[in-house]
């Protein structure tokens, strides 16, 4: 009977399982909870105080254990009737220093539970290791290497090396720091106060070595590839520059290629970039001042300028703007530009961004300022004007008549890139009388079967062009340009065959697209493309009157803009004194003055007659 019951129960359970929905035994899905920062802020400081007190007690306890161990060693030595050796004295001195650190007031000031960056270096290696573990969240966080070792002096000295794996050069650390210290043969006492100085001078063969006494500098050092050497019994550490992360080698420019002139571009390493500039501008008053940016990214920015040329107010303003930045993460020079630029919401750039050292060097010689950022291969140059953005580094390498011709061509191109679709739309829709009758008829016949107004035609094709351009950039490798060209041809042919747009609009948009790439500055080119859309829309509403209104507003906005205090449209509006280097370029010997608008300390670049040989008779010629 019991068996029967069990069987029935089993059968019922089987069908129950089969028919009824059973929730799968999966863990709950992850849902990101709201941040409880606000709740924490409302809490009283009580738990934090308790944590702090606990940490203080732990610190004191560790000190007590160390003291106990030391006293036991001393007692044992005395009982054996031996002399107190220097090792014990050294330990005693170290304990004395640690005792001073453990005074209640000091412990309370440096909240040990939330270690601040200003936390001082302890005389105890163990304490320093604990602080570093807290700062770098060890052992979860990998990458930090802490290497304890002993310096074989008399008495031997405990030490610890700390560095970030991957940022520092391991071979270099072994050769320059570890090897000399581990094979030290000095008989001088390491307990003396000048031991750190002596080690730095005699045992570490590195040019960039310095002492640090707080964890702010230590963190900066470790995070930028330096190695930190802690010594037992010393409240200072030694920072040795051992930067050695992997990076791209100095290469040819990618976006600012030229046929003539230097063929070197910046890379991602700040020191290499500054040296590239210094190699072209070997002036002893070429200043480079460092600033640390981003409370978390902690990247270095360098402001470079020629002290005897650059306007001091301009330099001070650039430094003021950089110093004032308060952000946690800033990793690119273009982002920095948004933080310090005059008009971050304008599509028009107010700083030049270049990857060419020769371009930066020539700008520095004019009195401008270069801003470099660690990890960014683009250097910002400020202040600039709209006209300087239309200059290409190659202009100075070519013969003047040709470079002037190219510059004029560039200006024609910028006008075409900005206005051609808008003017075509206006004339074909509102002012047909402005074009010869034959051309008007040709346009009319070409548009005969197109079902859309010209504005929609232009918009469709312009958007398609922008899409192809963007897609060409995103598609990897050699496929990008290929797909761009093939896509353009196929799309163009298909769109005409389908009578969606007329062939003449394809010509207009293709010409516009081509001319927009002639503009040397990429960001200016992007701004012009954006403005083109606005002008085309205005042209669709009011024809040439709309174009005129759009152009005027654009002109007014540009005239109102400033780049680090100098008018954006200088030297034409306002009119300032300038050399032959605005639209038409003059030969190098005619570039006698620096641009007046930069208010350089030294306005004169060269004397009126810089080619001295024209006033001197050739060798061997008859003076009479």
């Amino acid at each position, binding site marked *: 009977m019991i068996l029967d019951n069990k069987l029935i129960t089993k059968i019922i359970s089987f069908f129950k399982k089969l028919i009824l929905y059973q929730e799968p035994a999966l863990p709950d899905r992850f849902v990101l909870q709201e941040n409880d920062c606000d709740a924490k802020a409302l809490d009283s400081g009580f738990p934090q105080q308790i944590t702090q007190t606990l940490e203080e007690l732990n610190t004191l306890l560790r000190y007590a254990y160390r003291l106990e161990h030391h006293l036991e060693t001393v007692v044992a030595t005395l009982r054996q009737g031996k002399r107190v050796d220097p090792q014990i004295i050294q330990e005693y001195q170290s304990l004395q220093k640690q005792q001073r650190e453990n005074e209640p007031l000091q412990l309370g000031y440096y909240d040990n539970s939330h270690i601040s960056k200003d936390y001082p270096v302890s005389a105890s290696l163990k304490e320093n290791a604990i602080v570093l573990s807290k700062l770098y969240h060890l052992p979860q966080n990998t990458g930090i290497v802490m290497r304890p070792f002993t310096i074989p002096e008399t008495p031997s000295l405990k030490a610890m090396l700390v560095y970030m794996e991957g940022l520092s050069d391991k071979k270099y650390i072994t050769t320059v720091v570890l090897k000399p210290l581990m094979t030290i043969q000095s008989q001088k006492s390491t307990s003396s106060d000048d031991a750190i100085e002596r080690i730095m001078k005699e045992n570490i063969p590195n040019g960039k070595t310095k002492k640090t006494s707080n964890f702010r500098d230590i963190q900066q050092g470790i995070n930028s590839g330096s190695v930190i050497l802690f010594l037992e019994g010393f409240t200072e550490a030694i920072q040795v520059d051992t930067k050695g992360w992997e990076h791209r080698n100095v290469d040819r420019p990618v976006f600012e290629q030229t046929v003539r002139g230097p063929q070197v571009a910046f890379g991602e390493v700040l020191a290499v970039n500054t040296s590239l500039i210094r190699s072209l501008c070997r002036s002893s008053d070429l200043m480079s001042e460092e600033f640390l940016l981003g409370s978390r990214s902690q990247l270095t920015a360098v402001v470079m300028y020629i002290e005897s040329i650059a306007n001091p107010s301009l330099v001070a303003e650039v430094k003021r703007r950089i110093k004032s930045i308060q952000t946690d993460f800033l990793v690119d020079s273009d982002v920095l530009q948004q933080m310090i630029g005059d008009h971050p919401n304008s599509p028009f750039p107010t700083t030049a961004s270049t990857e060419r050292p020769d371009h930066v060097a020539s700008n520095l010689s004019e009195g401008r300022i270069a801003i470099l950022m660690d990890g960014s291969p683009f250097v910002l140059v400020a202040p600039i004007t709209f006209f300087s953005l239309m200059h290409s580094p190659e202009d100075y390498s070519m013969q003047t008549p040709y470079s002037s011709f190219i510059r004029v061509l560039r200006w024609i191109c910028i006008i075409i890139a900005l206005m051609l679709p808008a003017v075509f739309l206006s004339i074909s829709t509102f002012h047909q009388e402005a074009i010869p009758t034959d051309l008007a008829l040709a346009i009319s016949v070409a548009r005969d079967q197109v079902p859309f107004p010209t504005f929609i035609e232009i918009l469709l094709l312009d958007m398609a062009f922008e899409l192809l351009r963007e897609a060409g950039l995103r598609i990897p490798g050699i496929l990008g340009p290929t797909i761009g060209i093939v896509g353009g041809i196929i799309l163009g042919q298909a769109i005409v065959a389908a009578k969606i747009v007329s062939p003449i609009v394809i010509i207009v948009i293709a010409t516009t697209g081509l001319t927009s790439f002639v503009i040397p500055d990429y960001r200016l080119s992007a701004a012009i493309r954006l403005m083109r859309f606005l002008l085309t829309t205005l042209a669709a509403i009011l024809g040439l009157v709309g174009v005129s209104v759009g152009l005027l507003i654009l002109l007014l906005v540009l005239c*109102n803009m400033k780049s680090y205090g100098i008018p954006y449209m200088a030297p034409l509006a306002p009119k300032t004194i300038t050399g032959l280097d605005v639209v038409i370029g003059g030969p190098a010997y005619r570039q006698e003055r620096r641009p007046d608008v930069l208010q350089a300390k030294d306005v004169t670049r060269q004397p009126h007659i810089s080619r001295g040989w024209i006033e001197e008779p050739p060798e061997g010629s008859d003076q009479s």
Partner: protein
Amino acid sequence: MKHYHPPNMGIMSGVSLVFIGTAPRVFLHQSTEQLSINGEAAWLGVLMNSLCSLIMMLIVLFLINKLGGDFLSVCNKLVGKRVSWIIQLFYSLIFLISAALLLRDYVESTKLSALHDANYQLITLVYGFTVMIAAYLRIEAIARAGCFVLPFILVGSILVTILLYPFYQIYQLLPLLGNGFKPLLISGFRGAGYNLLALLIVILAPSYQNVRTMKVCFLWGLGGSAALKLLYMLVFLLTFGVEVGMEKILPFFEMARLVFVNHYLQRIEAPFIIIWVMFGMLAIALSLYIAVYLARHILNLTILRPLIPLLSVLTIAISMLPENFDQVTKYEGLLLNAEAIGIYLIPLMLLVAYFIKGKDEKCSSE
């Protein structure tokens, strides 16, 4: 809140401001009006009113040189705060109404020349918005934009006058005295009111380095504007003559339309639309800005920008009041009388006041 600070402007900016402020009606119907009053001597009338306005401006400069400060402080010193307040209100209203009528003029001209089927209210709103932006970006931006527009105006004007040479008929300038000496004299003096906006240089005197800079601005600005007006008047007369010319509402547009060099270079009026619209907008914005600047003084405000949208809307509203183009012309005639008071009567009154009592308050700015 940022307080108003006078901008620093140079000679080029000053010249472009005077030019923009005094020459915008050259693209409208001013030449036709002169033609109907003076006949073949219309060009002499243009020359006379430019000379008269230059003389009056030099008188104001003389007062500033002697008393220092700007035009408004000179008024304060010579006629007292109450009368000075009335003078400022008078000028502010004139500039505001002038901006409104000029706006309506340009709207009507646009409808006649470029956009026959467009709604005039739409054009007014677009122009009004543009003018507001220009004024909001302040005088520096207007002056600098003017520096860019001026070369195109000059090159365009010279191009049209050269390309029209096959239509020139010299005898159309004769008789030289046109309708006689009396109308020439009256219109010559009265027409100086068209140049009232040149006064902006002395109103904004703190923006300029010294009296000499202002004098150069007047000479080149008014001189250039007079040369342009004279050139157009002569070419208009040479091309159309008095009888035909009096029927043309927009002389410049008609002249550009007449150009025929060959099959591919004919009827070039369309590209000029871009230039004259920009020039007109800048002139209206300038007039509005000076009206706002004076309103700030009258109301004793520290800031200027919040007034600009307000007065822009007022300008647009006033510009829509006249029922038709004829009424606009009628109101402009009345305004010209008021402008003549502004350019002759008030500076002369100040000069007399200076000689009566102002000498005691000498404080040369040089």
